[in-house]
């Protein structure tokens, strides 16, 4: 009898405590967001339950929006095309702060120590550094490559030492800015080649690669020995053949390195270029369905998933990195814009803009496991990006 009463009381106390605590504590490791480009919304998602759990609007022009995560993986920094920089709390599902930092932006990155968020801008051309807590402007580096001439900035990537590497589309250079003193960045310049269109840093933070649009080749800077300058790799991969019209620029990021090789989109060709990531010599090419836009390695490096530029943007192909061959061709939906792997890569999420859906695929069986509704979805960004160099 007495024992029963005790149990009852304990139960009541537990109930009261739970009520006081409100929402249960949770981590953010399996959360992320999907950009809905046309309507200025993001949908917050949970990759364990494969569900959306909130939707946030009022984020401006999100065409070509990209996202980086705070070091604690709680906050998402969203860079909008219109120069908007919004800080979102994944747990409270709300906008913490939003500023308009430029006239026309293309993305951003976060520093090694997590304290500085840097935006890369087309107009005015250059980069701007903000305090990650407050979004207060700390400093800026105008991309003035010749007196009075400013370049669009592409390919911004964080690199060790609280530095950022980026490329100047109009200036044809790679710049590395050191933000050891966030209010007084120090910049080094390296000639790179004609019209760099995007860039990436290898997952170990050592090599910065800038893809070139104006010539066949990729500029490579060894950040451990920057005094050697940038050199060209995969030069003349087009072998003088006329390149196909490019209906969408490819995108580069550190996911391009897998199985000891770099897997890179060829400009104006239906090919993925493969280079040895130690010698940077070309080791092969993989013929694919169209002009690659994203060439993304799975987290274990066993697979490369590729999507394509208009008009082949309904296809996705998977390359096995061991055999170097296409092992799967999928048609997930209309206008596939982006793909994102869960942290350890058992599934991949794929956005199909013109179907207003995000498709979820098993990476082993290639079966579709589910889907989510989203309005004109483009980028998918999971919080596991928080811990990666170059993002």
């Amino acid at each position, binding site marked *: 009898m007495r024992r029963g009463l005790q149990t009852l009381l304990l139960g009541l106390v537990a109930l009261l405590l739970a009520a006081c605590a409100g929402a249960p504590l949770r981590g953010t490791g399996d959360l992320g967001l999907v950009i809905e480009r046309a309507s200025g919304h993001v949908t917050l998602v949970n990759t364990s339950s494969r569900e959306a759990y909130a939707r946030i609007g009022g984020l401006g022009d999100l065409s070509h929006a990209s996202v980086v995560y705070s070091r604690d993986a709680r906050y998402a920094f969203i860079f909008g*095309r*219109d120069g908007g920089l919004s800080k979102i709390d994944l747990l409270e599902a709300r906008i913490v702060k939003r500023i308009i930092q430029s006239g026309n932006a293309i993305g951003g990155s976060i520093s090694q120590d997590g304290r500085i968020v840097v935006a890369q801008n087309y*107009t005015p051309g250059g980069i701007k550094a903000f305090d990650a807590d407050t979004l207060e402007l700390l400093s800026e580096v105008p991309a003035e490559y010749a007196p009075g001439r400013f370049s669009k900035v*592409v390919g911004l990537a964080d690199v060790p030492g609280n530095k950022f590497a980026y490329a100047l589309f109009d200036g044809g250079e790679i710049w590395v800015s050191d933000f050891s003193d966030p209010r007084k960045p120090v910049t080094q310049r390296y000639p790179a080649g004609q019209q760099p*269109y995007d860039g990436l840093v290898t997952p170990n933070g050592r090599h910065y690669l800038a893809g070139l649009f104006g010539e066949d080749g990729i500029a490579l800077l060894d950040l451990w020995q920057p005094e050697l300058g940038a050199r060209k790799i995969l030069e003349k991969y087009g072998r003088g053949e006329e390149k196909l*019209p490019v*209906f969408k*620029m490819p995108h580069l990021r550190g996911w391009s390195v897998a199985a000891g090789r770099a897997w890179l989109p060829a400009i104006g060709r239906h090919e993925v270029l493969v280079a040895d990531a130690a010698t940077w010599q070309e080791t092969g090419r993989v013929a694919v369905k169209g002009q690659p836009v994203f060439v993304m390695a799975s987290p274990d490096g066993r697979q490369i998933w590729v999507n394509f530029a208009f008009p082949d943007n309904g296809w996705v192909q998977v390359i096995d990195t061991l055999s170097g061959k296409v092992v799967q061709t999928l048609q997930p939906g209309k206008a596939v814009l982006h793909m994102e792997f869960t942290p350890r890569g058992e599934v991949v999420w794929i956005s199909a*803009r*013109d179907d207003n859906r995000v498709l979820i695929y098993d990476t082993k069986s290639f079966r579709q496991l589910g889907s989510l509704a989203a309005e004109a979805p483009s980028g998918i960004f999971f919080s596991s990006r928080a811990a990666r160099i170059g993002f």
Partner: protein
Amino acid sequence: MSNSGFPSVLTSLLLGCFALPAAAEPSAARQQELIHLVRQDCGSCHGMTLQGGLGPALLPATLADKPVEGLVATIIGGRPGTPMPPWHRFLAEDEAQWIVAKLMAGFPQ
């Protein structure tokens, strides 16, 4: 009630209307496709709101001083030395003319 002036005014107005877009307008369904193409695929470089990106802005103010034929030629044939590709595989010339006219007037959503 004399309205002898009316028909001629009306005629010239009508002629004016038809003279501007030299070719027939695309069908309503095709117009929707073209609007989608411009917003989404041209938008990759020019921005979904056409305020520019890697490519220049395509707003009425930025296009006002550009000759129509040159803009149509750029869409159809591309612009060598820049990332602007030729779109003739996907667009007929009169469709490019329709797009240019709409861009110069303020592009539909």
